[in-house]
C-alpha cells in the first residue's frame, strides 16, 4: 500500500506525541500533581495511530478509560487534554471530566469512557446516525480484550452487523484486563474469531506494527463506507505500565514485559522510515524535539491555568 510521505510522517509524529505525552503524565502523576486515576497507553501507540490515520476528521470514534492515545491520534489538542487531566478550568471538559472522560465532538471524539464496554453501543448509535443522514461518516470503536467480554460489546457487534452499519470495531488486545490474563477470561485465543458469530470479517494484526494496523483498518473503513457493514480488527499489543499508575503489577512477570518492550513500535517504524529514506536521522531528531516542545508548552499551559470556580458546579447538568 503506497502511503504518501506526508501521511507516514504524520503517523510517526503522532506515535511520538502519544509517547511523550504519556511519559510526562507518568512523571506528573508520580509527583502527585494529577488527581484521580491515570491509565497510560505506553507501548500501544501503533494501534491508535494506525487506526485513526485511516479515518477522516469528520469520522467518529468512541474511546476507553485508556483513551489519551486515541484522542491524540484523532487530532485532540495537547493543551486542552493536558489541562483537563490536571483538573483545570481551561481543559476539554472544564475540569469536570478528567482523564477518563475527555471528548471533542468537533473531531468526532465521542468521549473516553470510564465504563468498560460502554463505548460499543454508543458507536452503534453514531454509525446509525451516519447511515441515517447519509453523511458518509464511519464510526470506530476502540475496546480492550477485557471489554470484549461485556454483554454491551457483544450486543453492539450484533446490532451493527444486523443493521449493516458503517462501524469498525478495533480491539486492543494487550493481554490483560487489570490483573486478569486473557487465558482466564475467555476460551478463545483470537478475539477476532468472534466476528464469525456476527457474520462480519474478523482480522488479527500485529498491533505493534503501525502500518499493519493502518492497512487492516483502512480496508474495514472502505467496506464500511461502501455500505458493506462492520468489521472487527484485533490488534495484538501490550501495555508497558501497570493497569493504572501505582499498580504494582504482581500478576505478570518481568520477562514478558521485556519481551514486549523489545518490540517497541516506535523505533520499529522509525527504522522503516529511515530505511526508505522517508526521513533522515536529522529529521527524526527535529520531529522529536518539536514534539517535546509542544508537550512542554501543554504542561505549562495546564499548570498556569486556574482551577474551576465552585460557582460553575451546577452548570451543564442540563442543556
Amino acid at each position, binding site marked *: 500500500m503506497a502511503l504518501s510521505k506526508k501521511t507516514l510522517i504524520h503517523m510517526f509524529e503522532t506515535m511520538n506525541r502519544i509517547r511523550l505525552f504519556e511519559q510526562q503524565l507518568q512523571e506528573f502523576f508520580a509527583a502527585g500533581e494529577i488527581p484521580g486515576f491515570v491509565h497510560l497507553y505506553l507501548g500501544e501507540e501503533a494501534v491508535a495511530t494506525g487506526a485513526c490515520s485511516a479515518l477522516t476528521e469528520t469520522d467518529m470514534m468512541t474511546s476507553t478509560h485508556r483513551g489519551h492515545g486515541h484522542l491524540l491520534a484523532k487530532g485532540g489538542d495537547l493543551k486542552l487534554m493536558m489541562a483537563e487531566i490536571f483538573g483545570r478550568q481551561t481543559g476539554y471538559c472544564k475540569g469536570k471530566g478528567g482523564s477518563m472522560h475527555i471528548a471533542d465532538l468537533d473531531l468526532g471524539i465521542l468521549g473516553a469512557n*470510564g465504563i468498560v464496554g460502554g463505548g460499543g453501543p454508543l458507536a452503534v448509535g453514531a454509525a446509525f446516525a451516519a447511515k441515517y443522514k447519509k453523511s458518509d461518516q464511519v464510526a470506530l470503536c476502540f475496546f480492550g480484550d477485557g471489554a470484549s467480554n461485556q454483554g454491551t460489546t457483544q450486543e453492539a457487534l450484533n446490532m451493527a452487523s444486523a443493521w449493516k452499519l458503517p462501524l469498525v470495531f478495533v480491539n486492543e488486545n494487550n493481554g490483560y484486563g487489570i490483573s486478569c490474563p486473557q487465558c482466564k477470561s475467555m476460551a478463545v485465543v483470537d478475539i477476532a474469531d468472534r466476528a464469525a458469530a456476527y457474520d462480519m470479517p474478523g482480522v488479527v494484526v500485529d498491533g505493534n506494527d503501525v502500518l499493519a494496523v493502518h492497512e487492516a483498518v483502512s480496508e474495514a473503513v472502505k467496506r464500511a463506507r461502501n455500505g458493506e457493514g462492520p468489521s472487527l480488527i484485533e490488534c495484538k499489543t501490550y501495555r508497558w505500565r501497570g493497569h493504572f499508575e501505582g499498580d504494582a503489577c504482581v500478576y505478570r512477570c518481568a520477562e514478558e514485559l521485556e519481551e514486549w518492550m523489545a518490540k517497541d513500535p516506535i523505533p520499529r517504524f522509525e527504522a522503516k522510515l529511515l530505511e526508505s529514506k522517508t526521513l533522515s536521522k536529522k529529521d527524526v531528531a527535529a520531529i522529536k524535539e518539536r514534539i517535546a516542545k509542544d508537550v512542554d508548552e501543554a504542561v505549562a499551559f495546564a499548570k498556569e491555568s486556574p*482551577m474551576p470556580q465552585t460557582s460553575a458546579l451546577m452548570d451543564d447538568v442540563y442543556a
Partner: protein
Amino acid sequence: MSEKTYLQALNDALRQEMERDENVFILGEDVGQFGGCFGVTQGLFETFGEERVKDTPITESAIVGAAGGAAVAGLRPVAELMFVDFIGVAMDQLFNQAAKMRFMFGGKATVPMTLRMPQGAGIGAAAQHSQSLESWFMHIPGLKVVIPSTPYDAKGLLISAIRDDNPVIFLEHKLLYGISGEVPDESYTIDIGKADIKREGTDVTIVATSLMVHSALDAADKLQAEGISAEVVDPRCLQPLDSETIVNSVKKTHALVIAHEAVQFAGPGAEIAAMVAEEALDYLDAPIKRVGAPFCPVPFSPPLEQFYIPDSGNIVEAVKRIR
C-alpha cells in the same frame, strides 16, 4: 479486641465466614491474586484457592446473575463490584432476577447472596466512579441495603449479610477503608435493620450514614462547643430501616437533620424525613433539614469535588438554621 481498619474488618469477616461455611465463595473482577480493587479480598485467594475466590471476566451482568443463580442453587456467594457505579451494567440481574425470585416463585426460592460495592466521592475518580446510589437499592422490594460507617459495624454487618437468606446490598465507602477502630478478633454479628446511636444528645437528632456519620460526629463536637447537644443516629441499614430508633430520638430532641452523600433530591433522606413526618410530626419543633449532595454528577477537579461532598460545616449550618 484489637485496632483494625475498616478494610481489615471486612477481610476478617470474609475469612471467618469462608472458614465456617464451605458454601461461601467470592466472585468478582481481580478479587484473586490481585486482592480486589481496594484490597478487601487480600490473602483470601492464597488461603482458599481459585475455586472459592473466583476472578471473573469484566462482565458485571454475569457476576451478579451468577451470584443469584449460585445462591438459588445452594451456595452463599459474596460478589464484589469494583465500584457501585458498575451496577448499571448488571441492573436487570439484580433488580428483576435476584431481588424478585423468592416472591415470584411463591416463596420457593431462597437467594442468600451478598453484593459488596464501594461507593462515594473523594478520590478524584469523576462522575462514573464516585456515585452514592443507595436510594436505587432501597426502592426495590426483595433487597436489603446495608451501609456501615465503622470498622466494628463493617465486620458484624458483613457476617450477618453473608448469613442472611436474602440478596443483601453491602455498600462500603472508599474513604472509610483506611479508618481504624476497635474490632473483636472473633466472629460476631450485628442485626440487619438495627440502628446505632453513635453519640447521645438532647437538642437535635442527626441521622447520618456512611462517611457522613463521621462528619456528623465532627459537627456534633463543633455544636457542643456552642452549647447545642446533638444526637447522632446511624441507621447502618436503609432496608430494613430502623424507624423506631430514629423516631424515639426525634421524640427526645424535637429536631431532625439528615445527612448523606447521595444526591439530596429523592435520596435516602427523603424517605427518612417522610417517615418521621408521618410518625412524629407533633414532636418536631422545627422543619426537618436535609444535607445531601447537589443535583449534579460528581465533578473531577479537586476544588469542585470537595465543594460537592457535604461536610461537617454543612451539617452545622443545617442544625443552626433550626436550633
